[in-house]
């Protein structure tokens, strides 16, 4: 089973993402701020991460950069309320695989994550 880490400062959102992902993926870590996120990511090396942007200490864009610096192959799906065009563009151009805007439908999150592991047809 693929492993996941959920990074979001809101406990309610971490719980909800866990409920959405857990039947199919194993959640091995949760972080509630950017500093904790970077430290836990390096310890756990999950197969993918869901990442909020507006967070205390270090924001999600800096966390994304930190994770990708450490592991250029990291799979990161942004899940954030800040869906401004420039922010979405910046996150995707830095290397995030998808950008889910809150509020979201559970299916949108599942699709974004399932797509990370879909075999591409060539």
């Amino acid at each position: 089973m693929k492993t996941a880490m959920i990074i979001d400062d809101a406990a309610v959102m971490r719980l909800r993402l866990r409920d959405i992902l857990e039947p199919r993926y194993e959640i091995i870590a949760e972080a509630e701020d950017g500093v904790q996120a970077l430290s836990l990511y390096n310890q756990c090396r999950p197969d993918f991460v869901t990442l909020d942007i507006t967070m205390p200490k270090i924001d999600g864009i800096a966390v994304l950069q930190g994770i990708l610096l450490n592991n250029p192959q990291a799979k990161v799906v942004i899940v954030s309320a800040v869906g401004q065009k420039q922010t979405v563009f910046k996150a995707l151009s830095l290397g995030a695989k998808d950008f889910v805007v809150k509020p979201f439908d559970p299916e949108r999150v599942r699709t974004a994550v399932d797509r990370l592991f879909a075999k591409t047809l060539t």
Partner: protein
Amino acid sequence: MKAEYANPFIRAASEVFAHETHLKMTRKSLELRKSPMPSRPICIILGITGPIRGQVVYSLDEGFAYEVAKMMLPGKLPAEIKKLTNSAISEIANMITGKASIDLAGEDHTIELTPPAVFTGERFHMDFLSIPTISLSLISEAGSIEINIALTEAQG
């Protein structure tokens, strides 16, 4: 203070509440105030920086906060809902402000939000700067929320 700052928040609040709680929010009042000082016992403060900057202060009472959390957490036990109430309402405030910021930022700008800070209880005192504020009150069948928007265009 531009009156047009109100519309993105009215739209965003209606959409976020409809999606997260299935509540239909309607505008009860819109007035100008001298500061974003909240008038309900629970308040959530978000800062905004960028080409538009200032504060947005949401406030509501305990009963409505609990109802919102209950609707956001279907199937959870009352003790767990109680524990997560502040997180639920701060996430609602975060989503409303995030959604409104899409309209406020437009195509070419970025508006940064601070994480929401929640304050509860009648006994704390907080001073707010005197900033012309649009105070919105939105009402639903389960309760109402006040949104105080104290934003200005950045100078220079």
